């Protein structure tokens, strides 16, 4: 009997993966939430309809788009507005938008639409109900919208170069789910297979929004050009994604949901380890990898940013693609453990951005090995919230050393190490980050520096007997309850904590935003400052009526034009 153990490549060390610079370089992959959704909808043969499109020549009115799954339907109720240009802002402090949306659970009646028409356009100032699953809004890209309307109205197709470079006609500026502003809690839908994976409701809402935007631009062009207007070429329309502008509000999410975030990273790391553990790659697997590498280079060539940090990273990534291309020209990937060799090589040959691009790309030929991990990405461990008071102080301190060892020697009193503080503004009740020593915000600080807090608890527990219990400690020191809870969660969530300083003078919140958005499946990250970023979603994806099993997965990689 052959007892030779199969070589098993371990998952990457959380100490490597969970650095902010790496999290801020993550790329979409097979497990991304948009791709999970399009694969499922194609596999289950979802049907789509547009029961209402009641929009006038000025672009004002309402439309409904319904997605019919095997058991249930979901409808995007869209309101289009005539927004004066001076009111158009992506910032969360805006109070009017070009279009506003709710995702309705089922098929809305006229009474539902009437109710929503009085609330959805107001966004945060309105109320939705348990029948709604998400609330969102979008603004036009001024650059591209008028170009596309004018071109179509004049009987011409829009310029592809401009479409490649902007990527979308509208960008959403918030997609609120999970009980926000009166909408249904996640619990209402969490046991439905089609929306069990994270953010499927939001991803569906954006998928339908993209269709609405395509229809609206056509409608406006038809209204303007009359009989001269032409229909937007579907091959051009496909490159139009939906933009998204994401600010600081999203950054605390990955800190506030350590188990959920762990599950995302863990799924991807397990997938990477599985592929690295393959002893050989078949010819068709290698061919597919090479093809998608070619296609991804085209996508990256369209990626634009003016932000100095991203400009530098893009230059490095572009150089990485050349380096990787040279490697692939000289290596047939026929050696033993080809993916592991490639990954190991990349650790010294490529930038962090290039390494993470590659780590996502090697997963592509292995749907059967990877896609099942998607089921592990939701957080179903509500009981992990409960602290185990019987744990000894010695054990708790050991857990802190394991996760936050890097932070033990940091001087947390030094100004540069605690220069920032996260707080919630009175004005919009949204998270912000400020200068602790320059603004009166310290007393309002949110608990978004887990490492600092862990070291504080560690130090204090050092004065206790190691055999005493966490329950005894917390009875007298309840200010450390949130920290001990997180510390205990780390036992089952090794990738739950960012292993970097989230309040230091050098922290870049855009790294936290990108980590989250990469799991959505976003591309073309374009930071607009150190704390907000624009992205593109669904560029290249089939529209609902085009969706098939053949195009449901690799749409993120553009086909090289013949």
């Amino acid at each position, binding site marked *: 009997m052959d007892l030779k153990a199969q070589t098993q490549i371990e998952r990457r060390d959380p100490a490597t993966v969970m650095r902010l610079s790496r999290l801020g370089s993550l790329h979409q992959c097979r497990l991304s939430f948009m791709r999970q959704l399009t694969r499922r909808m194609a596999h289950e043969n979802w049907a789509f309809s547009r029961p209402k499109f009641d929009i006038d020549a000025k672009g004002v009115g309402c439309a409904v788009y319904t997605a019919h799954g095997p058991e249930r339907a979901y409808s995007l109720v869209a309101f289009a507005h005539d927004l004066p*240009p001076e009111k*158009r*802002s992506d*910032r*969360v*402090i805006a109070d009017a938008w070009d279009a506003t949306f709710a995702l309705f659970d089922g098929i809305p009646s006229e009474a539902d639409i009437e109710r929503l028409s009085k609330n959805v356009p107001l966004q945060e100032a309105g109320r939705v*109900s*348990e029948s709604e699953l998400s609330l969102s809004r979008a*603004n036009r*890209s*001024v650059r591209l919208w008028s170009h596309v309307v004018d071109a179509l109205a004049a009987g011409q197709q829009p310029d592809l170069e401009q479409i490649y470079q902007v990527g979308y006609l509208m960008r959403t500026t918030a997609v609120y789910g*999970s*009980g*926000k*502003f*009166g909408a*249904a*809690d*996640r*619990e209402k839908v969490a046991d439905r297979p089609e929306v069990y994976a994270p953010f499927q409701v939001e991803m569906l809402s954006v998928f339908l929004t993209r269709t609405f935007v395509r229809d609206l631009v056509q409608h406006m062009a038809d209204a303007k050009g009359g009989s001269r207007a032409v229909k937007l070429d579907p091959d051009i329309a496909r490159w139009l994604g939906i933009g998204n*502008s994401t*600010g*600081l509000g999203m950054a605390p999410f990955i800190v506030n949901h350590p188990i959920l975030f762990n599950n995302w990273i863990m799924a991807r790391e397990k997938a990477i380890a599985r592929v690295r553990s393959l002893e050989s790659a078949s010819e068709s697997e290698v061919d597919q990898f090479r093809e998608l590498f070619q296609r991804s280079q085209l996508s990256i060539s369209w990626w634009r940013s003016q*932000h100095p940090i991203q400009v530098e990273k893009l230059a490095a990534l572009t150089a990485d693609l050349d380096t990787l291309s040279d490697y692939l020209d000289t290596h047939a990937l026929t050696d033993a453990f080809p993916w592991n060799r490639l990954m190991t090589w990349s650790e010294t040959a490529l930038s962090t951005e290039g390494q993470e691009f590659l780590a996502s790309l090697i997963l592509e030929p292995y749907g059967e090995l990877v896609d099942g991990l998607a089921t592990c990405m939701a957080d179903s461990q509500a*009981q992990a919230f*409960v*602290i185990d*008071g*019987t744990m000894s102080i010695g054990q708790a301190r050991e857990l802190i050393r394991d996760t936050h060892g890097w932070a033990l020697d940091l001087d947390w009193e030094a100004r540069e190490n605690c220069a920032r503080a996260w*707080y*919630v*503004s*009175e*004005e919009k*009740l*949204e998270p*912000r*980050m*400020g200068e602790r020593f320059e*603004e*009166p*915000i310290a007393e*309002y600080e949110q608990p978004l520096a887990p490492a600092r807090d862990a070291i504080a608890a560690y130090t204090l527990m050092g004065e206790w007997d190691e055999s005493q219990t*966490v*329950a*005894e400690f*917390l*009875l007298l020191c*309840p200010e*450390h*309850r*949130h920290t001990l*809870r997180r510390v205990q969660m780390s036992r089952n969530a090794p990738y739950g904590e960012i292993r970097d300083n989230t309040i230091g003078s050098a922290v870049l*919140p855009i790294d936290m935003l990108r980590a989250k958005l990469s799991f959505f499946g976003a591309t073309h990250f374009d*930071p*607009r*400052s*150190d*704390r*907000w970023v624009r992205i593109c979603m669904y560029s290249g994806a089939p529209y609902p009526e085009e969706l098939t099993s053949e195009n449901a997965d690799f749409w993120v990689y553009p086909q090289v034009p013949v």
Partner: protein
Amino acid sequence: MSFSLNEMEATAKRATRGAGYSWGQAEEASKATRWLCMQGLDGAGTLARLLERGLTLNLAAHRPSQIECPWNAEDDLCPLSAGSLLSDSVHLLKTNPIEMQNVTMPALLLPFVSNAARLLQEALTVEIDGVQVVTDGDRLMAPDTLPDTAQRVVVSRSASPEGSRMRHTRAYPAPEDWDVLNHFAHRTYAPATEESRLLGAGAGLSDND
């Protein structure tokens, strides 16, 4: 007006923190409030009345003075302190009931008892001055209202509840209680300044292009 349970939880967390409890206690109070609302009990009113008591002025006087039973404090006992200790010390219930004395807003103990029942995987009875409440961690048998203070509360292992309250998916706080919670929550918000408007949210390149 109905609120989602997430809205209830988020507001309860900010309110509890705003009233001076630690972040960890605020997390627990908010989950507890949500749980009460889910059971159709008045979570918002219960928490609002607790926060109005102002126990955080001297919280040490309102927490159990030791882990050994009975649990009492110099002053009346805060259910968030006693509840979290109960949840942290579930193993004690394996040998003896836990007795508490002079508890304010004892309904807030119930979510912690529910946690304990789940950890022990058996049902627990809470006797609140003679009123019996039973939970197995999932189901709850309890009257619609509970007193604002209890002289004596005893938590002990018991037979499973014979029925359960209907689950609710929304919270219906009384407007005045909702206002109280928002009043406390407001203390966690930093006043806006022009600087924070520009810098705090990270204005940068144009957002209208």
